[in-house]
């Protein structure tokens, strides 16, 4: 297949998927660019790339089974990042342009003005059938559970995948637990009514209501990295005692915060407790 011949877009999609898989992605899928109607204006694919037709989504780089087993919780804080998927997304964007001569742009990581993402990669993953939104917050893949995602917007009219017929969350185990105890594993580990972040309701085996305290969660999930640095900087600058201020600057907390900023540019998972108890993807977190 060359760019001068008629492109078989189904074949092209398989080829891109194979490159993604070879480069470390566990899952891949395509969402139609015009399917993002639930996103606010300015945050849709065509706002980033005019005449966008498709969004190719990749997922992977989740913590390994061994990471989940480590008794040192700080281990997970420093090894779980989305950078690998972001790097791979850039590679795929380049592949689409070089191989098929269609425009492609990687959805930028991080936040844009107003601390809002350029485009919701979680929504893209959901629309591309790479997973579904969960009670705990992250998009969960039915087999692998939690993972990091990257997205590439392109003018290439790739055949779109459909959303999952059966959402990954709630898992049958969680439905049963909710019926018996009125809670799920993730609600139980971080209950919004007791200082946690999660709450909600299941009806007929489906999510009927969901509560997620995003602000509270970020203070736990982002202990280090940019939000941690901002918090520490404010506290340090407002410390009137010069000696104490120096102690704060040279503290392990401040050092860790700076270190964490140097090895991950986007996001780092630093709590993961709601995911630790999640039955979705448990088989992949369980090894000998």
């Amino acid at each position: 297949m060359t760019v001068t011949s008629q492109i078989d877009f189904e074949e092209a999609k398989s080829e891109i998927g194979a490159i993604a898989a070879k480069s470390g992605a566990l899952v891949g899928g395509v969402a139609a660019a015009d399917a993002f109607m639930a996103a606010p204006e300015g945050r849709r694919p065509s706002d980033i790339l005019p005449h966008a037709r498709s969004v190719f989504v990749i997922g992977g780089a989740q913590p390994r089974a061994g990471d989940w087993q480590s008794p040192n919780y700080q281990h997970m804080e420093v090894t779980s990042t989305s950078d690998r998927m972001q790097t791979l997304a850039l590679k795929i964007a380049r592949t689409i342009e070089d191989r098929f001569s269609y425009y492609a742009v990687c959805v930028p990581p991080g936040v844009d003005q107003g601390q809002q993402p350029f485009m919701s990669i979680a929504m893209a993953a959901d629309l591309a059938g790479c997973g579904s939104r969960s009670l705990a917050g992250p998009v969960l893949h039915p087999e692998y559970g939690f993972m990091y995602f990257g997205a590439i917007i392109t003018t290439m009219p790739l055949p779109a995948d459909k959303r999952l017929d059966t959402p990954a969350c709630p898992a049958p185990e969680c439905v049963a637990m909710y019926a018996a105890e009125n809670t799920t594993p993730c609600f139980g580990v971080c209950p919004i009514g007791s200082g946690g972040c999660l709450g909600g309701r299941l009806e007929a085996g489906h999510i009927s209501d969901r509560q997620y305290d995003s602000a509270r969660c970020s203070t736990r999930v982002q202990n280090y990295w940019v939000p941690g640095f901002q918090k520490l900087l404010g506290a340090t600058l407002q410390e009137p005692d010069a000696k104490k201020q120096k102690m704060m600057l040279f503290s392990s907390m401040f050092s860790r915060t700076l270190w964490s900023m140097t090895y991950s540019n986007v996001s780092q998972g630093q709590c993961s407790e709601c995911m630790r108890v999640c039955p979705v993807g448990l088989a992949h977190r369980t090894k000998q």
Partner: protein
Amino acid sequence: MSDLETETRTQQIKQLALEAGGDVVGIADPRAWDEHVPHGHRPDDILPGARSVIVVGSRGPTAGAWRSPNHRVMEINGYDFRNDAAIHRVADAIEQQHDHQAIQAPGLPVAGHLPPFSMMLAAVLAGLGTRSLAANIILNPKYGLLYYSACITTLEFQYDHMLEQDVCPHHMCVESFRRFGKTPCMAACPSEEGGCLDGSIDDQGRIDYSYYDRERCVTRAMNFGINSFQKALAQIVSEQDEEQQATMIYSDFFSRSCSAITHYKESVAQCFECMRVCPIGRSERKLK
């Protein structure tokens, strides 16, 4: 060592560099630096006994990123460090397969604001491009703007010649200058109107004079990153009002600045307007 062996080795290392992510590769004779830079900035000053400098260039933003109406997309997706990755593969291959020393040439300043080794000069001497009217950026005849990295090694390769013909000015720009007194890049960012560029073209169609206001350019090309972090931090530290200080720390501007310095990945070049109008490499950015 026969010429044939050197030629074969040269072809092999160039092929490796391209497979590892480079878009172009060239090799320069370390002695060529002598007439251009002072002692301390030559290949032999960095690796004693240097006999070759291998230079790899890779494209920055994808063609899709160039088309985005959201300028902040380019601010973030400008660069993916493929040239650095390729140079590491090249250096590894030289040390492991040929038993010669090889290092990645240092690209960032270690004291003052001048780099110990000029990648721009390396690219010119390796025949990959020539200096342009647009901020002295080295333009490659095929791709235009590229990012460069270099490997200095004690192993000898066949050297490439410098380009015989200047890449800049393009004949279209020569015509534009003769008619309007400006090239597209000068018109996009004229120094006499608060911009960064000025210059002139002689009767032979070559650069006669060029002016580049580097300090002014930095304030535009580096909206986020180390520079904006330093600027914002100075303002935050000197703010007396605690509430105002906290607002500045948690602003999206400071968040983006912090995020941009993490791993130096999110944000490197952020203006691109002189390159947007440059005809060199434009065909490479024209896709479907």
